[in-house]
């Protein structure tokens, strides 16, 4: 009985990672193909941040780090971005979000207001790293650009985190 429980847990974990991978691919496709449809004043949400926070709060900081790295790397490859920029920003996001992970209370964390706060904080860190790297190559002032676009983008991303909670994913996916 104990062994079968262990096996079931391991199988569930494998299944969850498959779901995460599929979700990451779908988000990349959505982010590239459809996100312009929900553009507001040149701002678009970064749904990958939400996924990385979700994985981090579900699986812990260690898993979140790698999830952020891999998700960012996929995003870099799929876009014209310099490889490593999104990977770095998402790794930072995963690392920062990991501090909000509460082992054994994952289910509650994902359904509460703290998830939204975590997404916002993770997004702010992500954008600060990303815009810093992005603006290093240009003459633009980092702080004015970051406060104008970085914070606004974070807020817009957070709105989608609210939607993620409101819609509530199937229990199997939420309770991971």
């Amino acid at each position, binding site marked *: 009985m104990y062994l079968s429980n262990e096996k079931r847990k391991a199988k569930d974990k494998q299944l969850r990672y498959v779901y995460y991978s599929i979700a990451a691919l779908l988000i990349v496709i959505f982010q590239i193909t459809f996100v312009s449809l929900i553009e507001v004043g040149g701002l678009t949400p970064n749904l990958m941040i939400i996924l990385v926070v979700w994985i981090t709060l579900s699986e812990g900081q260690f898993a979140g*780090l790698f999830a952020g790295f891999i998700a960012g790397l996929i995003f870099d490859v799929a876009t014209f971005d310099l490889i*490593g920029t999104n990977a770095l920003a998402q*790794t930072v996001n995963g690392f920062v979000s990991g501090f909000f992970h509460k082992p054994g209370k994952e289910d509650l964390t994902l359904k509460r207001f703290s998830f939204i706060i975590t997404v916002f904080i993770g997004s702010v860190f992500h954008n600060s790293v990303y815009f810093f790297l992005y603006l290093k190559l240009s003459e633009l002032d980092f702080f004015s650009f970051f406060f104008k676009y970085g914070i606004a983008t974070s807020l817009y991303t957070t709105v989608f985190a609210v939607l993620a909670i409101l819609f509530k994913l199937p229990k199997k996916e939420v309770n991971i």
Partner: protein
Amino acid sequence: MQSLITFVTKFKEYIAFTALIIICFSLISIGDVSKIGGFRTVIIGSMAWMQGAFSWIPNPGALQNENRALRELNLQLSTEVIKMRSAVIENARLRQLIDFKETYPDTLISAEIVGKSSIELRNYVVINKGESVGISRGMSVRTDAGLVGTVIGSSDDFALVEMINNRNVKISAKILRTNISGILTWSGGEYFNLNNIPTSFDVIKGDIVLTSEYTNKYPAEIPFGVVHEVIDEKNSLFFSVKVKPYVNVFTVDQVFVVKKVPDDERNRLLIELEERLKIKKNIQ
């Protein structure tokens, strides 16, 4: 060894974070956005195909931006169209002037109006040519359309022109169709009055009015305008004839000075006659 494993286990997140950061910076340092090759081209191509497949979905934000850009472009183009239209009109006018200059028997000096002044009902303009090119007092000024005025003063590089729309000016004119003569005067407004035309004479709307040979001030046969209205006033022996000048003196900007001065002997004779009449009037 055990302590090392414990340390790694305890700080595995920090160690992994540091390692991943180093990997990211390494990737950034070796990356080159200007060269995208290999599998990335396949992925980007696939993404582009996907974007193309869903491009039929309307994007209100993009449409709004496109509309804004098109409106700005439209404004810019309409401004250019107006400029081009002005250039076409100017070109046509200059061509007319060149043709006219080639066919006119008297020597003409082309000039531009550089200043305008209006004092009560007396209108003057300053042109940018003067004595240095042979302009002198008394020469008539016209356009290809008709009479503009006469030079009343000149310096080396400028000349002052008394316009026809001046209450002091009297122009001896005739009707081309019937050769009937009269005196043109201006008392403000768009039209001139052709005076001294008896009601028994043949004058109709649309008759062309030219300067007559009876004046020494202006050369004869210079087009002046067209009869706009003929009013048969009761209890008067003369018609009230309104003439619309060909030249719009308020918008004219390029003129010709007819290099022909009035006959001095004829002028002197007229002045003497006027003085005699004044003396006779004073005696009476």
